[in-house]
């Protein structure tokens, strides 16, 4: 088997709140390969978001290491991490997190503002991304003019517009009705199967997990169970 995209060894995370120590992650060992659609499940407070955030380079481990794309994230400084995220990570959040004063087009364009692409190239990339999520007709709309499902698809377009190495989604269907949730999951699935994007998704929803190739279960910060989904293995 080729080298994994993400390698997590003996990873632990302890939060300190006042005098109390909260152990969010404990001795996690995990390898994720390019092209996988990974699902992280577990009860509330089990450490799913924390693990995702560490992989994304917006939080750090207190024990062990997370080597992502051959880079030990803790070795990068803050600005280095920011640039690294811009190049390699596409984020999808539970609450969409679009900027309300920007149109769908402008929201998707945001991460491209940090690249050296010309205005014209940026436009092309944004249009392509919006085409993938089937929202080219909503380009000039503001977030408040879109449905929740459409907002989340714009957020997905924003996540893929830089052509990142992997997409990280924290409960992307958490705020959506069943119909919109299915649409969003289908888009993610397409990105994985047709465009070969590696996806790591946190979810509570067993139906969402069906789209994944592999599901990891977390409980109280411990990795408890691995399920390989038949359709992909």
């Amino acid at each position, binding site marked *: 088997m080729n080298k994994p995209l993400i390698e997590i060894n003996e990873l632990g995370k302890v939060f300190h709140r006042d005098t109390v120590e909260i152990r969010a992650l404990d001795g996690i060992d995990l390898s994720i390969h390019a092209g996988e659609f990974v699902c992280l499940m577990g009860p509330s407070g089990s450490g799913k978001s924390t693990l995702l955030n560490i992989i994304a380079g*917006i*939080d750090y481990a207190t024990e062990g290491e997370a080597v992502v794309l051959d880079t030990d994230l803790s070795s990068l400084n803050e600005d280095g991490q920011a*640039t690294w995220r811009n190049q390699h990570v596409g*984020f999808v959040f539970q609450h969409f997190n679009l900027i309300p004063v920007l149109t769908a087009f*402008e929201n998707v364009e*945001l991460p491209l503002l940090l690249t050296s692409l010309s205005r014209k190239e940026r436009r092309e990339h944004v249009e392509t991304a919006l085409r993938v999520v089937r929202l080219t007709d909503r380009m000039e709309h503001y977030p408040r003019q879109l449905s929740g499902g459409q907002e989340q698809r714009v957020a997905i377009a924003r996540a893929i517009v830089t052509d990142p190495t992997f997409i990280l989604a924290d409960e992307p269907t958490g705020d959506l009705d069943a119909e919109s949730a299915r649409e969003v999951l289908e888009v993610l699935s397409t990105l994985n199967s047709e465009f070969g994007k590696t996806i790591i998704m946190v979810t509570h929803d067993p139906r969402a997990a069906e789209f994944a190739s592999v599901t990891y279960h977390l409980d109280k910060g411990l990795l408890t169970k691995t399920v390989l989904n038949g359709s992909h293995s």
Partner: protein
Amino acid sequence: MKFLRLLLKNLLRNKRRSLLTVSSIAVSLFLVATLETVLTELNNPPETPDSALRLITRHKISLFNALPIAHRDKIAGIDGVEGVVGSMWFGGIYKEPSNFFANFAVNADGFFNVYPDLIISEEEKTAFLEDRTGALVGKSLTERFDWKLGDKIFLESNTWPVEVEVTIRGIYEGGSDLGTTLYLHWEYYQEVMAAAMGQWGFAGTFSVRAQSSEEVLRIAKEIDALFENSSFPTKTETEKAFLLSFVAMLGDIQFFITSIITVVIFTIILVAANTMAMSIRERVREIGVLKALGFKSTQVLAMLVGEAVLLALAGAMIGSLGARVIFSALPMAQLTSGFIQRFYVTPTTLLLCAGIGLLVGLVSAGVPAWTAARRPVVESLRRVA
């Protein structure tokens, strides 16, 4: 530049709040521009090439001590002196005290030699010179009181126990007082004063015109040396220095104005800081999103501070340019009875206001923007909108 759009859209996010902030900054900087212009004008009396040639001789002790008119001929005898006229504050009141304007009794002969910068026709000059009870009035004054040539003006002095009736014989424009003064013959004044007080023969100041600007300082020294040991010693200075000594007499007005300006700046910084703090607090989560997408803390900081600077600069420009437009349209000399003859908001003042705008923007956004930009991404994202 590609971030400018984002910046502008963020500014228009809460239009009413942005508008209120810009307005309060604009009003404050209108005030600053006005006060600053008062300072500038006080410290820069209007100057013409002719006024640079003029010296004013007054009593060494103070302006309120008079000098004998006999000094005039002695000064005229000094080498390089083109002309000398004695001048006395008459303090004439026209109808009511609120009609205040400057009026002086002057030696009419030689007056136009010393004040060639007054614009007036030859006929009117002659008419004034030939009528002992004639008066020469500035154009602004005639507009203010609706006067014309030949009008008889009754003036009751509030300085001397006398009154005069003069006939307008000439109307001038220009000069360093910009046409806000009335001149009557010193000889006529002398006559009514002598009638009221027995003996008289004094002038408050002498205006001396030098033949060339190189000689101005030498002449000033010679005049003062000439009278040094007399019972009426003098102090001679350039017209500009003389006018500035009035400003010094206004005492701590400069300190007073500077203090007000400082307080105003401090206040708008607080107002703007409050706005920026609110606007940033509402956006903590969005700032977290931007950073998650790859924006660096410094880029976020620059954007937030940029917003504040843009707001403050807009306010500063509106306020100070507004002051410039308004004051150039208003007849300030008339409105202030000649106390303010010129009220021009200079480019330096505009620049100062822009500088204040920049400062207000930087300082007001500085702390909240820095805090928000530095906050770890996970913490910002956790914030509920």
